[in-house]
């Protein structure tokens, strides 16, 4: 039988199929954080349930944590309360907990792969939609709601109808200055924010084969922004190399056994998808968004499209541009910017900071720019220091902050003020996402760096 990678992983986790209903899906690994788990634990208690497999759940604090002075008590009482709830619930049920200040602490989708929690062929869920990140390893990974967090705690299963399958092939090679973030923003701009709703997407083709694990994570991370349940890339030597010897990766005989299984995780040559799309990698240029959803993106050298040239309602489109303070036909290059944010589970890994450094090296931060450099984890932070990137940043006038989600969702103090424009390497440019009234332009670390040193939206290819 010819099956897809997605089918192989999904089908091997079905505990029970419900007639005219969802599948009961076993979850290998469950990640939790302070914001979407407290109510799930309350529910668990009120039903007199307990955690079925505490060793399969992993807690880290990231969403509301401050990115400076993490050694001091958290000032915001509501955030402190959520952090305390996470710590207490983890202790009560025997769940691994990497709280603020712990050397393994960081953004949930950064620390999972770093510690071998993320494995090929696994099912992974978390109460955060960018759980799709882990699909880069050939796992089925997706975001869930709090009711489902409670389900996984109490039964290690969730109930899901099996999504349809889509394959997106990108052939050829990427051009100079084009990064995985640009690939993802390009795909989303083609599909719109709902183009993959109901689908699980496999990414295939030379561009993904060539891509590093960090890059694959960036692409899979953004799958949700076109509505997909998740994204998946077949594991290969790069994947195995990355996960080997990490904290929770199987070792010894268990590794050998797992490898035998992992090597079967490919889509059969004659497998059929419900939908299949192919793009040419050389058509992609550095991307930037101009509107209030991630589908509103364009090549950086292009102009903002006219309302009549885009799919969807004209009124919604105009409302979006109004919010941004932009007009149809505007050029993006040269637009004034106030803030630059590099970080998040999309682009907060070491490779992203290397890219940022490649442009700011020997240059200076523009005076009009407030820059937030936020590593995805303490491991990333340590690598930044070890590789000498911190010295480059400091010389260029940048300050490195401590890990967390930060301005990706602005639950802590890292908020972009109303009306201000931020070039951000995160994943969402929704109205107010980075603070009430904030205006977000999503882009790659290279575009962010180029903008940070010039003070206006800048094509990184002119500075590389």
């Amino acid at each position, binding site marked *: 039988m010819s099956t897809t990678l997605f089918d192989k992983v999904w089908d091997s986790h079905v505990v029970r199929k419900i007639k005219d209903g969802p599948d009961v899906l076993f979850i290998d690994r469950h990640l939790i954080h302070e914001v979407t788990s407290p109510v799930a634990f309350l529910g668990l208690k009120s039903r007199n349930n307990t955690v079925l497999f505490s060793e399969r759940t992993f807690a880290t604090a990231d969403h509301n944590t401050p990115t400076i002075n993490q050694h001091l008590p958290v000032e915001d009482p509501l955030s402190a309360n959520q952090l305390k709830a996470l710590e207490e619930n983890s202790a009560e049920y025997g769940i691994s907990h990497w709280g603020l200040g712990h050397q393994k602490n960081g953004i949930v989708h950064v620390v999972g792969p770093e510690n071998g929690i993320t494995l090929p062929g696994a099912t992974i869920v978390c109460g955060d939609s960018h759980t799709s990140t882990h699909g880069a390893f050939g796992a089925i990974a997706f975001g869930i709601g709090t*009711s489902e967090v409670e389900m996984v705690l109490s039964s290690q299963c969730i109930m899901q109808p099996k999504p349809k399958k889509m394959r997106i092939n990108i052939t050829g090679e990427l051009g100079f200055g084009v990064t995985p973030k640009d690939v993802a923003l390009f795909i989303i701009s083609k599909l719109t924010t709902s183009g993959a709703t109901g689908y699980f997407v496999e990414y295939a083709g030379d561009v993904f084969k060539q891509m590093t694990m960090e890059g694959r994570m960036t692409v899979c991370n953004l799958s949700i922004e076109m509505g997909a349940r998740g994204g998946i890339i077949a594991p290969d030597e790069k994947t195995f190399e990355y996960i080997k010897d990490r904290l929770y990766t199987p070792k010894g005989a268990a590794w050998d056994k797992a490898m035998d299984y992992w090597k079967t995780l490919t889509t059969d040559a004659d497998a059929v998808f419900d939908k299949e799309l192919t793009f040419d990698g050389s058509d992609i240029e550095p991307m930037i968004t101009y509107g209030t959803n991630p589908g509103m993106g364009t090549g950086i050298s292009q102009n903002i499209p006219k309302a009549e040239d885009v799919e969807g309602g004209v009124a919604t489109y105009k409302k979006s541009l109004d919010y941004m303070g932009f007009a149809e036909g505007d050029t993006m290059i040269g637009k004034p910017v106030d803030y630059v944010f590099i970080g998040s589970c999309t682009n907060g890994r070491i490779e992203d900071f290397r890219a940022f450094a490649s442009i700011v090296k020997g240059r200076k931060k523009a005076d009009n720019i407030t820059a937030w450099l936020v590593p995805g984890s303490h491991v990333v932070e340590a690598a930044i220091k070890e590789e000498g990137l911190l010295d480059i940043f400091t010389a260029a006038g940048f300050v490195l902050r401590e890990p967390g989600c930060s301005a990706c969702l602005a639950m802590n103090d890292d908020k972009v003020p109303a009306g201000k424009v931020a070039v951000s390497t995160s994943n969402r440019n929704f109205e*107010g996402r980075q603070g009430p009234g904030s205006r977000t332009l999503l882009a790659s670390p290279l575009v962010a760096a180029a903008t940070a040193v010039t003070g206006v939206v800048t094509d990184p290819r002119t500075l590389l």
Partner: protein
Amino acid sequence: MAYDKFQILKSTAVPLPIENVDTDQIIPARFLKATERKGFGDNLFRDWRYNSDNTPKEQFILNNPIYKGKILVGGKNFGSGSSREHAAWAVYDYGFRCVVSSFFADIFRGNCLNIGVLPVQVSAGFLDKIFKAIEANPATELEIDLPKQTITLLATGAQESFEINDYKKQNMINGFDDIDYLTKMKAEIQEFAENRPF
């Protein structure tokens, strides 16, 4: 039993003819700091509903007393973005029991079903009819019949059927949820877990 039973709902509706309404708009992140499921309705559509000084924005639909009811009607691709179940809680807590749209984002749809809010997906044409009917007469009523899986514009009798899988349908009708189901499967799940390679 986890939530109210849902069978037939007859109500006026609140129209929100905007596409791609994301969950950051339904409830902004700064209101996600509670450790209990309480009071989220106050912050439903917070930044569309209130100015930064907390005065209501008069032109926003929820601030217009003409529009009320237990049904929220939204534009295409409703509930995209963040997986926060808080968005569904806010919709519920405000008093809505049903959201109608021509297209829903997956996670939001699932979250609604898990807490007893019925997502009803209609055709683009029918959605347009609903918006027009409410515009012409805000007192227009809709009837959602879950057992029959139909939605009806009572003024004209215009009707469409909607999809819901039978398992979820029975859950909604009886007020059961997935946890009730899963906890009964414990032995089967434990046995399954023993055979997992990691």
